[in-house]
């Protein structure tokens, strides 16, 4: 593996991160040079220096090997999270070393969990940086750097293969350049449209931009302590639900829909399953909430239930109410949403509906083979036969996900958390959702957790964001050469 090549491309990603820090410093400047201005400016400079330094020495290469691609992607996430701490650390306040690391990882992995007790106390520049990290994370640090920075030549495709979810990759039939363009066009376009819609439904421009960025990044960071509940507006919630849902759908499918191609939203089995799943769960939760007298009428129950289901299923994690007060059935269904999450090829994390579908079909086919041992049964999805290797990969992923969740739960409970908090924290971090239940409910945060658990949470977030295997590759780095 050519270490210098890896360093060069990580450096390019850092340039992109530095650019966003500079934009945040600009926001700070517009707000009468608030206290975040100098921290953001210095962070931008340091990040830019770290990124540009390798470019003085390493030439661009035409071809990147698979292992180098992995190293660049994983390295970029890690380094982006590290430099993302700089503005928080320099600004101070609640941001100790571990808190800054937590907030940075939570942003870049689009988890949206926070350690902040008073979000509104943060200067606007820093709030914008917080949302920016989530927005960058939404599409993938590497992905963005590849689109924006034009000097990567043939190496683009290799990185996109590594960065995108393995299932999403199979669905992309477009050429690599088109992939990058469509991703950015859809992502930026969706963010702009959401911003305008939120502005005209009652938010200020600043809040609208921040919430649009974190909705499209499926992160869930808010500029208010009470999250979306602050506005108490059905219209705002509706707009955000649409933005979150679209961001959790395969971007290739969105592109196909926009360009009138065959494999569009209405014909996609995965999207259909995703939407139906959210609808059914919302209705069940609403009924259970009305039955338990949590809400007096079905309309109100449905409004809160559907927002929470969409927010959790898309791995955003915005809140309009304290779900800790909901019925056990509602809680279990929300935990189920936290596990399954959105579609592959989107900004959401978690196990993904695609894997759930393939796994359920594999199980069904195995049962058929039990009954008819000589039958030749193929597993199909969207009319395409899924190869044995894909099926194995899906099952391995699911087993790994379950194992990691259990290990995470053990660690959380080992350090004093109750089982509900431990289990849901483990799932919510691994799926990059954000809120869980118990001590880390939708209206509370991770600030009260001990340092070890904050570290454990960030580790799970990184593992989850890199689709488990991307991170595990790091453990075998020695055998790469």
């Amino acid at each position, binding site marked *: 593996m050519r*270490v*210098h090549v890896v*360093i060069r491309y990580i450096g390019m990603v850092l340039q992109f991160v530095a650019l966003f820090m500079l934009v945040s410093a600009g926001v700070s400047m517009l707000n009468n040079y608030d206290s975040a201005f*100098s*921290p953001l400016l*210095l962070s931008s*400079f*340091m990040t830019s*220096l*770290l990124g*540009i*330094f*390798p470019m*003085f*020495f*390493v*030439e661009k290469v035409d071809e990147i090997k698979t292992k180098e691609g992995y190293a660049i992607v994983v390295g970029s996430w890690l380094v982006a999270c590290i430099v993302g701490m*700089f503005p928080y*650390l*320099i*600004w*101070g*306040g609640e941001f100790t070393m571990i808190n800054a690391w937590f907030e940075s990882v939570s942003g870049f992995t689009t988890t949206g969990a926070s350690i902040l007790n008073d979000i509104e106390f943060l200067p606007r520049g820093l709030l914008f940086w917080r949302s920016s990290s989530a927005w960058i994370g939404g599409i993938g640090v590497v992905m963005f750097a590849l689109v924006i920075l034009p000097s990567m030549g043939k190496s683009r495709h290799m990185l996109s293969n590594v960065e995108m979810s393995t299932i999403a990759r199979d669905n992309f039939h477009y050429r690599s350049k088109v992939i990058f363009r469509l991703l950015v066009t859809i992502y930026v376009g969706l963010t702009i449209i959401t911003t305008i819609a939120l502005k005209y439904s009652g938010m200020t421009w600043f809040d609208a931009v921040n919430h649009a960025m974190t909705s499209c990044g499926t992160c869930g960071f808010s500029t208010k302590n009470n999250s979306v509940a602050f506005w108490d507006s059905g219209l705002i919630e509706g707009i955000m639900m649409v933005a979150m849902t679209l961001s959790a759908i395969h971007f290739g499918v969105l592109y196909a829909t926009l360009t009138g191609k065959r494999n569009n939203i209405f014909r996609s089995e995965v999207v259909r399953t995703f939407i139906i799943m959210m609808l059914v769960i919302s209705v069940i939760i609403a009924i259970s909430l009305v039955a338990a007298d949590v809400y007096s009428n079905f309309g109100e129950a449905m409004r809160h239930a559907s927002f929470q289901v969409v927010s959790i299923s898309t791995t955003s994690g915005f809140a309009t109410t304290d779900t800790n007060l909901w019925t056990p059935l509602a809680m279990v269904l929300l935990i189920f949403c936290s596990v399954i999450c959105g579609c592959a090829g989107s900004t959401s994390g978690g196990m993904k509906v695609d894997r759930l579908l393939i796994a359920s079909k594999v199980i069904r086919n195995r049962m058929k083979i039990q009954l008819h041992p000589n039958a030749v049964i193929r597993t199909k999805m969207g009319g395409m036969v899924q190869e044995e290797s894909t099926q194995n990969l899906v099952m391995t992923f699911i087993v790994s996900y379950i194992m990691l969740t259990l290990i995470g739960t053990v660690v959380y409970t080992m350090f004093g958390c109750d089982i509900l908090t431990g289990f849901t924290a483990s799932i919510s971090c691994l799926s990059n959702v954000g809120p869980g239940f118990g001590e880390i409910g939708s209206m509370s945060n991770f600030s009260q957790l001990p340092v070890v658990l904050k570290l454990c949470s960030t580790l799970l977030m990184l593992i989850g964001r890199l689709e488990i295997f991307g991170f595990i590759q790091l453990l075998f780095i020695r055998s790469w050469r």
Partner: protein
Amino acid sequence: MLKRVVDIFTLKSIKGRVQLAFASIILLLVFSGALSLFELERVSHDTEEILLQSKMSTDLAREMVTALNEQNDAMIEMAVIGGNIVDIAPYYKGCVASIEHLSNTALRAHERMVEIGSPEITDSLMLYTARINDLTNRYINGDVHRAIFSDSLAHITPHSWYVECYKPEYVNLSKQITKFMTGSESTLGPDVNSLSLTARRAVTPVFLSLVVMIVVTLMFYYFIYHYLIKPVMRINHSLGEYLRYRSPFDKDIACRDEIKSLHDRIMILIAKLK
């Protein structure tokens, strides 16, 4: 100049690249140093501000205590010790002056508390100041004596009036001055907290710059080794092999700068020797 810049960014000049690397390290140092200095300046300014505010409160409290004690001394002389008009005349004047002094100082203290948004701290102080000044005024205007010689207060003497009426007010006002002292100090709490924040901001940039510098230095070492030392060692080794055994000179070198130029010239020289 333009050619040099182009050479650096097209990786053709090792000298320019090394210079640029050093320049960026120095720039980082200067930038973080400047930011730390700026934050230290703020720490110094904030500290000065806090100390000044603290001193102002102490001065006001001291002035009030002095005025109150002057008034109390005068009242003791006039009401308790007593004497003829000539003896008590200076105390009478002192008493009048202290009333004004006490009123003005209490008013200044109240205005300051209003300014920093905590007027409740001096509300009682203003009340007790007004009450004690009113008592003193009544005494020096002769209202108390008239009341004593009339039937309404016939059972008390000036001495007992001092003990029963004036002394409790004196004690109350003393307590209020102490309350003002502690109250005004506690209002500095947020400023002190902000001071610790600013102090951290002054230190963190330097710490982070140091970390970045270490990383940059490590990268610098790695790149210098990879792109300068290693190729030179290879060229040297290959040239040695050629001179000793006439084995072919190493043609594979992956750079475009002066090292490549040196390599190419050696190859030309070898070709000429053949």
